[in-house]
């Protein structure tokens, strides 16, 4: 899993500029929709899952912005660690509600 392979996948030498543009626009639209979905999901436990998907979308966007480093940390933090923390916190809260 050497990160530089990840880079190679999207180096512009292999992707034509027009395709890159279209890719970025698509992901940007998805990210905007994802953010809206996260906010509008009012049930916290479900929201944690939507947040995880949003983190994934952001990670893809950052890859398209040529930022593999940030992609990796967004994946580990935004898509995995934060949703886990949220679910743990919710579990703790719910255990008390019973």
């Amino acid at each position: 899993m050497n990160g530089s392979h990840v880079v190679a996948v999207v180096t512009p030498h292999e992707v034509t500029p027009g395709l890159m543009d279209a890719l970025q626009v698509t992901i940007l639209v998805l990210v905007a929709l994802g953010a809206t979905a996260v906010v509008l999901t009012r049930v916290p436990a479900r929201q944690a899952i939507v947040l995880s998907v949003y983190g994934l979308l952001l990670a893809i966007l950052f890859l398209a912005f040529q930022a593999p480093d940030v992609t990796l940390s967004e994946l580990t933090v935004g898509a995995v660690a934060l949703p886990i923390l949220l679910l743990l916190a919710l579990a703790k809260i719910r255990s008390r509600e019973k």
Partner: protein
Amino acid sequence: MTPGQRRWIFLAGMAGLAAFYLWGLAGLPGFGNYPGPYGDILNRIAVGQTRATGVVSAINFEYRGFDTVGEEFILFVAATGVATVLRHLRGEREGAASDEAVGRDLPPTSEAVKMVALLLTGPAVVMGWYLAAHAQTSPSGGFQGGVVLATAFILVYLAGQYLTFRRVSPVDVTDAVEALGAGGFAAVGIAAVAMGLPYLTNFLPLGTTPGAVTSSGTIVLISLFVGVEVAAAFVLIVVELLDQTLLLREESR
């Protein structure tokens, strides 16, 4: 304000703020036209100066290393804050007998989950360490490595090996390790001061081959310290969040 009033007042204000913000953003050179010079200069000189092929890591751990010192302590202080808030909570709860039944009905972890989690532990440790040790070459570094390393510990928990978990990460030791990770980074910087150099100067030999594992002097060292700090901080936070459940599960066995 009632929620309804608040919503409309907010929407009016936000419309103004958004227009104002966009007016400013329209003055940027436009997407895809980063004007430089900061990033371009670093892209040009970083590899030669630091022997690191990953410029982002070179910035995080060298050119703007002092930001990272602050960032590590943000994590340190947040983990400490979580620990104080939640430990205090636990102290209060110990007296409350009525709460004790809470964790009993937690479903036991299924065997399959235990199996998968255990199988993943090894790779997670290896990968976390790898990421932390390769800051200078690839898109990785102490931060990402630390989080992955922390997940290894969490996997142990998922496997239901609570006693192992206790042994692997007694909270007291995690505290100390976290402090050492954050302090170690700051201390690497101080070592330069002791030699009469500016703080955080890269005083170790850089090696000759850009991108080799032992290249880039203090970058690797700092990255490892960051990895330790981040892993410990995350484990600490998760343990504090889990602890109540864990104690109860242990009792119900």
